[in-house]
């Protein structure tokens, strides 16, 4: 039970990958990607966690001097902060491509797009 967040993140990663690999509808693939993305964020944040420590924000609870022994790792949190926004941007880009693909073929079935198949 100790690493619940880490386990949840890894399960989300696998569920998202399943969505990407096994679904045929392009929108479901994009949703799978979003779940995959979220799972990675949960994994990163849970790796940053150190036992019995608090958020890396200094206030009355955590003074300057004892910061190093009381806060969790701020670097992966900063990484996730940027990764979330990039995830939003990539999702928007994929939705645009999906829109264009639908306009071309009038279908969202990924099996119908065979141009790059050999």
């Amino acid at each position: 039970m100790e690493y619940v967040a880490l386990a949840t993140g890894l399960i989300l990663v696998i569920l998202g990958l399943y969505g990407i690999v096994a679904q045929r509808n392009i929108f479901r693939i994009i949703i799978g990607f979003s779940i995959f993305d979220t799972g990675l964020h949960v994994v990163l944040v849970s790796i940053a966690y150190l036992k019995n420590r608090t958020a890396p924000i200094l206030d009355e609870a955590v003074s300057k001097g004892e910061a190093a022994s009381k806060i969790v790792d701020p670097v992966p949190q900063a990484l996730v902060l940027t990764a979330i926004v990039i995830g939003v941007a990539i999702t928007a880009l994929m939705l645009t491509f999906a829109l264009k693909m639908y306009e071309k073929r009038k279908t969202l079935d990924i099996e119908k797009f065979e141009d790059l198949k050999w």
Partner: protein
Amino acid sequence: MVKKLVAIAILAGIAFMLYGLFASYTQKETLPKTSRYYAIKGPDELGSANLVTSVVVTYRGLDTLGEVTILFTVASIIGFFLRSRTKREARAENPRETSEILHTGVAFLVPIIFVFGAYVFIGGHLSPGGGFQGGAIIASGTLLLFLAQPKTSGGHTLITFVESVSGIAYVGIGIAGIFLANGFLDNRILPVGEFGTIFSAGAIPIIYSLIGLKVGAELSAILYKLKDAKEDA
């Protein structure tokens, strides 16, 4: 059928690998070297109470600039792919009027959402906020506006203006850091001030506000382009 089996076999392999990582994972007891430096030196060096902010805006500021660039690139690519309707075409198609409830709710909520977004990015060095979160909140307000007024075509100039000005000012402050402080995007071009107050941490509140405006404008531009996309190109 075979394809599905292959997919499940691959996923089982990946799951096995991830389980190996999970089973051998043990939590660290202390901070890694870099993080310890940020935790011990960060508050005195930069004066930011939120250490994540000091990492995002100053220590790894170049990465953040790169990330804002990625957002800009994505918005440009979306603009390239989605041709927007001309004004006459937009007027010709007559979407159903939005409901009274939505109109009233949006008129009440949107100013509050914008102010809350500004609060989140201005207080980014003191509280768990920041430019990216505040920008996303502002973009959600824009989305509400678009839902209530689907026919509106104004605002695009304002979005582009905010986007360009905040981007240029961000890079300008970064370059000012080379001449007035120790390097590109150094926040100590302004006095660090009293720790834990709103006017502290040098240029961090200004930089984070600019990032907030930039992200908000960028995401709003993406929403705008998706809203105005031509039905069949």
